[in-house]
């Protein structure tokens, strides 16, 4: 009731003026630019997260060093911190008055870093438990049979943690497409350059252009549904291995 009705209203409003007009609004140059930027950044963010998230999870599970439990706790910070504060934090270090001389505000790089900040925990938190449960005997067997480290990682470890990485990436991707709080301050929100889809929707609601906002919102909604399906599929795959 709470979830379905508002979304139904959104879809209804977007097609109220006919499918043709929905399409013409959704494919206007500005909305296409915003959607493209969001998707492109989300892809980049997903790739970086897949690599660094796995490395961080690896270090947290297999390595021992002083301060590890602190690092482990800090990972969740982006979940706990309000996103608008996250955006402001990045501005404090990498903004116009940056003490290290790096100014990435009002650029796409700025949006990219902001998205990296808020999506950091997803892959770490989905890979970590899988890595903990992974059978180390298989790795040692492979090593004693003469496999190099890279070979061990590629043929023993990676297949085990891949579902974890992928579901983390899917969550991070969804978050990156939809994020607004962390982005809104750092982006400058210039149409065609630094305006992401969520900000486009936000600005067009405030400007009274509900049709335009709804059209882009529906496209974003479709992306969310596709991702949910993907996550559901991955979850099914992961539990199927368990059942077998």
């Amino acid at each position, binding site marked *: 009731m709470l979830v379905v009705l508002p979304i139904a209203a959104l879809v209804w409003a977007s097609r109220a003026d006919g499918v043709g007009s929905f399409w013409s609004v959704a494919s206007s140059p500005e909305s296409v630019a915003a959607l493209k930027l969001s998707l492109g950044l989300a892809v980049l963010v997903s790739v970086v997260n897949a690599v660094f998230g796995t490395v961080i999870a690896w270090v947290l599970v297999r390595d021992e060093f002083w301060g590890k439990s602190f690092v482990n*706790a*800090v990972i969740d910070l982006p979940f706990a911190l309000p996103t608008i504060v996250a955006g402001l934090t990045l501005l*404090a270090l990498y903004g116009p008055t940056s003490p290290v001389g790096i100014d990435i505000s009002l650029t796409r790089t700025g949006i990219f870093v902001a998205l990296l900040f808020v999506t950091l925990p997803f892959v770490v938190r989905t890979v970590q438990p899988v890595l903990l449960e992974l059978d180390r005997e298989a790795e040692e067997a492979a090593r004693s049979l003469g496999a190099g480290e890279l070979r061990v990682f590629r043929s023993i470890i990676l297949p085990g943690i891949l579902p974890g990485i992928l579901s983390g990436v899917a969550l991070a991707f969804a978050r990156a497409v939809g994020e607004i709080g962390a982005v809104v301050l750092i982006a400058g929100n210039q149409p065609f350059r630094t305006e992401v889809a969520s900000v486009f929707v936000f600005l067009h609601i405030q400007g009274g252009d509900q049709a335009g906002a709804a059209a882009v919102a529906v496209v974003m909604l479709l992306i969310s549904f596709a991702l949910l399906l993907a996550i559901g599929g991955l979850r099914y795959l992961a539990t199927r291995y368990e059942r077998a």
Partner: protein
Amino acid sequence: MRRYVLRLTAVGYLVLVLLAPLAMVFWRAFSHGGGEVWSTLSDPNTVHAFQLTVEIAAIAVPLNTFFGIVCGLLIVRRRFPGAGFVNALVDLPLAISPVVVGLSLFLLYGRTGWFGNWFTNHGIQILFAFPSMVIATVFISLPFVCREVVPTLREIGDEQEQAASTLGANGWQTFKRITLPSIRWAVIYGVVLTTARCIGEYGAVAVVSGHIEGKTETATLRVEDAYQNFQQAGAYGISIVLAVMSVIVLVAMTLLKPKEEAR
């Protein structure tokens, strides 16, 4: 050697993206003395913003806790057509952009919306007022309790519950004596996550609240407002209060986690 490279990469990445910026906020806020920070924080509009944030959380968190437990029980314990659908629906707020959520509510309760007319005719204002902000927050923070409760419920199984009912316990007694104690930590952990999300919500609330200073402005909206009005130290000041809140949440999360795993 490889170990050190990996360790350095992981910690270095965290410092660069996470810790260094956070440390900067503190430095930035107090670099011109605490005066401006204090004057922003004691501004009645800021105080009101924090009150509003707490009020919204105070309504949304209990609601979602109740809903999360009920939903978890439904998904795990009852076989009914559409259980998979409910399961997917609960995840929806995690995948949808908060702005899209905001717009949906905007269209539903707005003047031309399905419910908007009815409420306007009865003199109840939903949009640009407290009710819509609560609804938006509830929507956004819906999944957390349920997501924590579901795996725990699966793990404990229902043998004890069945034993209790064969011994004559009714549904409520079984729930209170058997189910609730065993999912306790999952519920608490979910509540912590929900609270963090409620306090930090920006996108959905920004759309439906209308941003009226001193009326429908929450703490997170206040941060944006202060920053856009060039009261940067003030914005950093409010951020610090919010950051301290989230550190408290974080500590709670860390303390609760091992207990949950050790059980």
